[in-house]
């Protein structure tokens, strides 16, 4: 909100700070204020008045605040109005407020006649321009000026245009329309408060005036309204009509009942002085709700305790007195009517704290019993997982949780399983991601022109719907660029072992076994990762169709793991395993088998015959003999724990293996 330095200064006799100093004081004690901007002989201050302080939405309000900070009195100028004795306000117009106090809590008005509508004097135009208002004519300018000066929005009607000279405050009827001063048409309904004459709305109450009753150069009789509209009514109107004005902003945050008649009289005084109007005798003042005096229990000890600094009761009371609080009975303070935000002792702590100065509160460590924080295993393991992937030379990425519609279509996720954003930031971000893989593929594509080797991973939430329930899960996913299925399998092997999981294995991919059934995989080169019988993830090559869609020229291998499920399976302990100091004996065994034999089948024979002394099996060579047959060479390591293993023993085991292999007519030992 913009303020004129000169106008603020006008409330003080002397001792008012220089513009720059004022900006600093305000920033540290009340509201953030930008560096003052010099314009002509004035300075403009941009003050970020906090939303709980509508009492400072005017120059007088802010001056009152400054006065409490600098401890100098802020005074309003004195004025006196001269009323015409013969013509009473009631002879000009009648006012009726309907629906109790739901629209309006107080309605004050005066009538001023014989006005001369013309250009405003220079001081008035300057003051308005400084605060960002366009000067229009003296009558409208005065109403705007009162608003920025005192904080009370006013509205001036051309009384001669009001049918029946009757002013009704009521809810609009469905279908009623109004053309506002800025030539916009609004359709109204029963939730919008209006000012109406006998026939039609002539203003949206507290928001904007109608064109049909506006002030023109020909206007001679003014009906000047100064009302207190309820926050609720104004909020309804602004939301329904999507229309906000300087007036509605003030009403929305709440104005004070006592301000309406005072501002009205001051406006009338200016109309008389500037527009040469005559003020009809008396004023309309319909009060539907009384302002109750509010008090609050004062507890200087609690205030000191909240702030963490000893401030004497005397000093606290002085600060609060300067802010307008009055001491009443013992331990109770009367809250000034303009401070609707004060409800509890903590509010007083804020008042005392900021005026006393937060910089004067010394930083002190709390005196508490030392207790080690509880460590959440999930936090620990997430960190650990990231460490492992980093050690395997993967780079961590983080991506948006939102996907475009086309991504969902491409992945083949049924739309009833996806969660839509009702008000997305743009079409790029319409759906919550049901998988991390889409953005990871985007990452691969984006980086492939610059990097020949890409190894990336991400940990993040994925979202989908199950039986109308919104599900949020943590997932781990990643990618390797290139024809590197077995490299990725090796990384996953290392990862699961490192997590202390012994019973993980890689099963064949079964399409449609997943909840979301992503159309990402090349089915022949894809595997389900299982722990025991439970599926925890999937990995494999990306299908040609997806690669083409992403325009990635190379193969890509992906994986995605359900981290919530994995977390349940992680075994925490890590114990030292004693290893043998005795030499190991290595033997290579080659087996000829049909092309379609799985390595796993042969491994199982080797491991079951090997016994405890077979400590490791490595597949070291695969060699195609012809189209039907291949030769697999394994390197077997034999070692005993407590002694050196004898070559004889090894031979025995090898023979056992040979016998077992030869039981199968499809297999043959290559000697």
């Amino acid at each position, binding site marked *: 909100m913009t303020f004129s330095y000169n106008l603020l200064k006008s409330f003080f006799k002397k001792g008012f700070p220089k513009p720059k100093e004022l900006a600093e004081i305000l920033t*540290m004690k009340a509201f953030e204020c930008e560096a003052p901007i010099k314009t002509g002989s004035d300075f403009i201050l941009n003050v970020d008045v906090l939303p709980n302080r509508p009492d400072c939405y005017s120059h007088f309000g802010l001056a009152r605040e400054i006065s409490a900070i600098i401890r100098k009195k802020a005074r309003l100028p004195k004025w006196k109005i001269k009323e015409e004795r013969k013509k009473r306000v009631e002879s000009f117009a009648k006012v009726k407020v309907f629906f109790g106090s739901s629209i309006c809590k107080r309605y004050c008005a005066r009538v001023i006649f014989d006005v001369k509508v013309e250009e405003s004097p220079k001081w008035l135009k300057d003051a308005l321009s400084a605060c960002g208002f366009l000067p229009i004519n003296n009558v409208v300018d005065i109403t705007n000026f009162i608003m920025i000066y005192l904080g009370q929005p006013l509205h001036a009607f051309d009384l001669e245009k009001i049918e029946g000279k009757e002013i009704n405050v009521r809810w609009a009827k469905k279908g009623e329309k109004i053309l506002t001063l800025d030539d916009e048409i609004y359709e109204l309904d029963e939730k919008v408060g209006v000012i109406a004459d006998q026939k039609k709305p002539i203003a949206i109450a507290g928001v904007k005036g109608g064109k049909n009753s506006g002030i023109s150069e020909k206007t001679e009789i003014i009906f000047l309204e100064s009302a207190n509209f309820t926050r*609720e009514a104004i909020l309804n109107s602004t939301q329904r009509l999507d229309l906000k004005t300087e007036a509605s902003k003030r009403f929305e945050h709440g104005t004070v009942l006592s301000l309406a008649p005072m501002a009205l009289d001051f406006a009338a005084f200016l109309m008389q002085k500037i527009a040469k109007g005559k003020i009809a005798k008396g004023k309309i003042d319909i009060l539907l709700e009384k302002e109750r005096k509010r008090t609050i229990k004062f507890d200087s000890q609690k205030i000191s305790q909240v702030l963490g600094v000893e401030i004497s009761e005397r000093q606290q009371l002085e600060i609060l007195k300067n802010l307008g609080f009055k001491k009443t009975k013992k331990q109770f303070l009367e809250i000034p009517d303009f401070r609707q935000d004060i409800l509890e002792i903590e509010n007083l702590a804020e008042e005392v704290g*900021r005026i006393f100065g937060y910089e004067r509160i010394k930083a002190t460590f709390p005196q508490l019993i030392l207790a080690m924080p509880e460590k959440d295993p999930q936090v620990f393991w997430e960190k650990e997982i990231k460490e492992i992937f980093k050690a395997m030379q993967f780079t961590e990425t983080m991506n948006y*949780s939102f996907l475009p519609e086309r991504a969902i279509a491409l992945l083949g996720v049924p739309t009833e399983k996806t969660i*839509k954003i009702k008000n997305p930031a743009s079409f790029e971000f319409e759906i919550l991601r049901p998988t991390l893989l889409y953005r990871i593929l985007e990452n691969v594509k984006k980086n492939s022109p610059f990097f020949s080797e890409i190894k990336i991973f991400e940990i993040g939430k994925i979202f989908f719907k199950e039986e109308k329930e919104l599900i949020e899960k943590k997932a781990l996913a990643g990618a390797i660029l290139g024809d590197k299925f077995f490299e990725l399998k090796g990384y996953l092997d290392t990862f699961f072992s490192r997590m202390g999981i012994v019973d993980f294995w890689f099963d064949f991919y079964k399409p449609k076994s997943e909840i979301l059934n992503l159309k990402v995989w090349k089915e022949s080169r894809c595997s389900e990762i299982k722990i025991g019988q439970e599926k925890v993830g999937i990995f494999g090559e990306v299908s040609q169709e997806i690669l083409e869609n992403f325009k990635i020229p190379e193969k890509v291998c992906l994986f995605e793991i359900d981290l919530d499920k994995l977390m349940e399976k992680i075994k925490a302990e890590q114990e030292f395993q004693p290893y043998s100091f005795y030499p190991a004996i290595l033997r290579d065994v080659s087996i000829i088998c049909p092309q379609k034999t799985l390595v796993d089948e042969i491994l199982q024979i080797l491991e079951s015959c090997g016994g405890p002394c077979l400590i490791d099996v490595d597949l070291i060579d695969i060699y195609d003999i012809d189209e039907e047959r291949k030769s697999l060479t394994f390197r077997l390591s034999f070692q005993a724990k407590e002694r050196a293993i004898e070559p004889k023993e090894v031979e025995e085991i090898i023979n056992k293996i040979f016998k077992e292999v030869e039981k199968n007519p499809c297999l043959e030992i290559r000697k």
Partner: protein
Amino acid sequence: MDFKKKKSELLGKIKQVKELKELEIVWKNSLKEIKKLTQNLKKISLKERKRLGKEINKLKEKLEKDYQVKKQFLQEKAKEKKEFFDITLPGKKVELGRFHPITLVKNKVEEIFQSLGFEIAFGPEIEDEWHNFDALNIPPNHPARDVLSLGKTFYLENKKLMRSHTSSVQIRYMETHHPPIKIIAPGKVFRKDAIDATHEIEFWQLEGLMVDKEISVANFKAIMEEFLKKFFEKETKIRLRPSYFPFTEPSFEVDISCVICQGKGCQTCKKSGWIEAVGAGMVHPQVLRNCKIDPREWQGFAFGVGLTRLAMLKYKIPDIRYFNSGDLRFLRQF
């Protein structure tokens, strides 16, 4: 006896050789000696001959092996002196694995606060209105609710939403734990915004909450100063300015002395020497009551920091869009 002596003599000789020329001579001599030994075999009994013959063969093998090893070693040694070796050739490229800068910052923040006794808490990213708004003293029709909910929050079905701040975790934690409470909650938050160099729709926040019998503004200052000092690894000043949040009272904005220019004035701090970094305050009594905690008995502070913003300050990252870019040219710098 004789053979054993000979064996250690022969083996010892090869061991002691220092030059290639000498080695060849020793080797030839050794072969001669072996030959002699073999010839001598004829003179002994058949049984002895068999045994000794085996021994001699073993020795021959061993000598040959030693000779070859020694030869190679001496050859290499000879080369060493005159070798041309270009050490200016480039080294083999080794790629390190990397953490996202957010992870780095998050780890560091967690470590600092854990050392101060804070626990790490978290909550869901899909939230309800109670935890994101109502319980935080932002009821419907509240001006702050208006700004947050209509303008800045992503809504899903059934009135669910994407949390717009990590303050929701405060509520979730206080609903399930009784004071004393000391937690931090790092997490992703979502705001409807136009993305540019300083605005994102998805970024990271850090929430802090400490509730006990007498936790004060003075305590908050101490903890915040300590944290910032440890985080930026330099003396960092803070100042508190009055502010307004519905869920704290008193509320303040915490400025930190500019870590880029040390308060001298630069682009980042808009020449003021201060950076607005933390929103904080004393937990509003209504928020405590909403979580069934008696504000007459308990009080404390809460704060919210942009974790993404901390990362930008720490690593001097000029544009927030890098974080969600997935660009390895960015990610491989950390």
